[in-house]
């Protein structure tokens, strides 16, 4: 029997939310338009010089797009602020917390990984597992680690970490590990592969990221809510950032804790059952996902064609297209993730997201999608294109100022009559406009702080009102300085993507090694130079204009030290000791977060990674058992590689050759035997085999 949305029982608790949602969206549109047009009018008046019509028109068009963009975020925050302050939201997805779970509500937790640190991945998995078992309802859940790892050392360590976790947790048959040989369609393909193979065994799946962490109670709540609302296809829990160590990560963690719940409550206000999915920390009804959310390849070559990179938004849109609902469970605690530790790591992730979000522009006209999701596709792309617009806005503003400065005021325009046009100073209007923009930008964060201090429990968890506002000011300063750096990078990413340069798919750095001065210089040298040149030009053209631009220029000129210092874990610890950017749960972390920090003791082996798979007996047999030919009885696939490996040692093999050998059980067995045979000790020593000690006699 195929489950359909229309056949699912009517959900009385959420009522006629579609009608309400329509009105709320009309209201939001009016609210966004209301300040945008007056602001554009004022902007038109304060632009210098009456000439250069097309330049002014372009500038105004860009200004309106940017202002509407900011206004949308502003009103979303206001709606969220009201919802959280009053504590009333009749359209929040709820369920009876005492309702026992049905036996049929089997749930798979999927953890797709790709070249991640195995110890950290499995530390989080263990923490989630233990938390789930503590609820007493863990038997309905199964874990699947779905690996797309290609790095030979990492994939062997993944296998070891998994086997160790299963053994230590007594989770045989409950924590599964599968590595795909062909990484079709990346993460979405990995999840689809799970669905095709095992999807029918589970009513729900919770998709996690490699840095995701979920509390057992939260998982149970998610299942319970899905059971109570049978028309929901995806229910997204809001991941809170944890384990931040560097100043940048601590800033992100702080502002997300301060404003994240408010923004998501605001999103829930106008998105309601047409919300989006963020790719992880969400529960998904498997049957409709399989029926509607298979993603085809986009026609054409990458970057704008090929595999859909930011698959989550598209899957949510497909779910709604299939008649199902997608909601945000913004009230649920116990859903966590980590954030990139350095600015360069964040930008590397943004490069991938930028390409994925720009691909969405090709889906704007795809058949059947709800208008809101078309809007979300546009919104997602705007997340990066807005940087290009902002850059263009500043650039055109500089050009216009330069033109006005060099040509001087034209008192008599052609055909303008006998009377001169006097120059009018509109400083007060410019300042009003700037204040309005700043309010739009910064009031939401202030409201987040107000929410945080409005309740005693949260105020204390943030370290008190003084620390909240100190953190807010420091975060505002940091984000003002970093905004132009992000602008320059995002502009480049958009241009790269539009001009056909694709991203390489690699694992994300989640460690906190920090950015060296050399690396920072290499990546931010261009931005620094641009900032210095721009500042020089602005100063030469019009010193007042230079002052207007100075916050932007300061970020660019200082981008190298900002990138270096914001990546220093030692500076992060210093901030932590002083209670700056303190967040709830930091001093006394929840049990699941505490458990995730306990990295398991690694069982000793001869070597690690690829070497261990060849030399160490346990790791060797474990790896063989996961291959198609676990006894190495078939003919070796790459005898040439095997022979070279033996004659020249492991150092002679590159990563690709090592990976090929790891897939060839006959060659691995051959090497294992030869290394331990004692026949050629020098070659064996190159593989890390211990020396041969002669015993006195056989016992």
């Amino acid at each position, binding site marked *: 029997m195929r489950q359909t949305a229309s056949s699912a029982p009517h959900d009385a608790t959420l009522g006629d939310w579609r009608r309400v949602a329509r009105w709320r969206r009309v209201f939001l549109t009016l609210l966004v338009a209301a300040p945008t047009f007056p602001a554009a009018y004022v902007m038109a008046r304060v632009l210098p010089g009456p000439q250069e019509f097309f330049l002014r028109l372009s500038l105004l068009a860009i200004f309106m797009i940017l202002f509407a963009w900011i206004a949308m975020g502003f009103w979303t925050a206001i709606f969220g602020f009201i919802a959280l302050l009053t504590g009333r939201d009749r359209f929040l997805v709820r369920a009876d917390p005492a309702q026992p779970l049905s036996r049929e509500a089997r749930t798979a937790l999927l953890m797709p990984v790709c070249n991640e640190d195995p110890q950290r991945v499995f530390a989080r998995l263990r923490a989630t597992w233990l938390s789930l078992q503590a609820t007493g309802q863990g038997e309905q859940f199964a874990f699947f680690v779905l690996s797309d790892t290609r790095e030979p050392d990492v994939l062997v360590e993944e296998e070891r970490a998994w086997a160790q976790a299963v053994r230590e947790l007594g989770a045989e048959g409950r924590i599964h590990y599968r590595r795909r040989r062909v990484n079709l369609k990346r993460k979405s393909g990995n999840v689809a592969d799970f669905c095709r193979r095992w999807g029918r065994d589970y009513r729900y799946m919770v998709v996690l990221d490699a840095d995701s962490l979920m509390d057992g109670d939260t998982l149970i709540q998610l299942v319970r809510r899905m059971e109570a609302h049978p028309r929901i296809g995806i229910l997204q829990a809001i991941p809170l950032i944890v384990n931040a160590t560097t100043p940048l990560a601590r800033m992100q963690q702080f502002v997300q804790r301060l404003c994240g719940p408010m923004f998501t409550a605001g999103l829930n206000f106008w998105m309601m059952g047409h919300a989006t999915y963020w790719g992880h920390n969400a529960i998904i009804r498997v049957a409709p996902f399989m029926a509607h959310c298979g993603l085809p390849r986009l026609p054409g070559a990458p970057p704008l064609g090929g595999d859909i990179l930011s698959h989550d938004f598209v899957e949510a849109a497909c779910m709604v297209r299939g008649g199902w609902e997608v909601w945000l469970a913004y009230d649920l605690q116990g859903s966590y993730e980590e954030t990139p530790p350095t600015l360069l790591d964040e930008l590397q992730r943004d490069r991938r997201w930028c390409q994925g979000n720009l691909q969405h522009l090709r889906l704007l006209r795809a*058949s059947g999608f709800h208008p809101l999701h078309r809007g979300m596709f546009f919104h997602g792309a705007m997340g990066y294109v807005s940087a290009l617009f902002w850059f263009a806005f500043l650039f055109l503003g500089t050009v216009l100022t330069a033109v006005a400065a060099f040509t001087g005021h034209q008192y008599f325009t052609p055909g303008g009559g006998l009377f001169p046009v006097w120059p009018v100073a509109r400083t007060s209007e410019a300042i009003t406009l700037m204040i309005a923009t700043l309010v739009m930008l910064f009031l939401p964060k202030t409201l987040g702080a107000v929410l945080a201090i409005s309740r005693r429990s949260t105020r204390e968890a943030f370290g008190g009102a003084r620390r909240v506002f100190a953190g807010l000011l420091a975060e505002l300063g940091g984000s003002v300085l970093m905004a132009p750096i992000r602008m320059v990078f995002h502009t480049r990413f958009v241009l790269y993507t539009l001009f056909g340069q694709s991203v390489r798919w690699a694992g994300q750095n989640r460690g906190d090694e920090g950015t060296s001065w050399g690396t920072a210089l290499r990546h931010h040298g261009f931005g620094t130079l641009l900032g210095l040149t721009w500042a020089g030009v602005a100063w030469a053209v019009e010193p007042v204009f230079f002052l207007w631009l100075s916050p932007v220029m300061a970020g660019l000129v200082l981008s190298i030290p900002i990138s270096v210092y914001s990546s220093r874990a030692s500076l992060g610890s210093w901030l932590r000791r002083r209670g700056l950017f303190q967040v709830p749960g930091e001093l006394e972390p929840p049990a699941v977060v505490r458990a995730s920090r306990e990295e398991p003791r690694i069982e000793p082996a001869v070597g690690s990674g690829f070497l261990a798979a060849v030399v160490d007996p346990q790791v060797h047999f474990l790896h063989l058992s996961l291959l198609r030919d676990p006894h190495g009885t078939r003919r070796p696939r790459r005898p040439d590689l095997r022979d070279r490996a033996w004659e020249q040692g492991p150092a002679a093999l590159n990563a690709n050759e090592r990976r090929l050998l790891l897939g060839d059980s006959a060659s691995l067995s051959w090497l294992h035997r030869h290394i331990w045979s004692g026949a050629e000790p020098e070659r064996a020593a190159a593989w890390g085999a211990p020396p041969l000690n002669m015993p006195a006699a056989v016992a």
Partner: protein
Amino acid sequence: MSEPLRFEHWSPTLEAVLRRYLTATSVPVSEHAALLIGVALALGSQSARGDEAALPLLIQAVQGWLAAHHRAPIDMPAIHRGAMLSRSLKPLPWGALLRHATPGGDDTTATAAEATIRDRS
């Protein structure tokens, strides 16, 4: 019955090779002798084979021992092949976007009665 004759005649090198291998495994020391005797028995039964056959036999024995005592948790649930279905993402003419109706495909066009019949089938 095969005799572990060769066991007594193992060279110190062969013994060292085999012991070194056993030491690298997680097989407890108390089990080493049993495994070595097993190898010797197997070698005795295959008298045509030389000392070089001892290590592969031991490797096999260790693999068997590990499989029995520390079984690799490789079993996956049975596969039920199901399709990941997707409707076309073909672009619509711009005009069609303005006439957007109820979202959803075939599923949402079914009447309640049709859905009930389908669910009972």
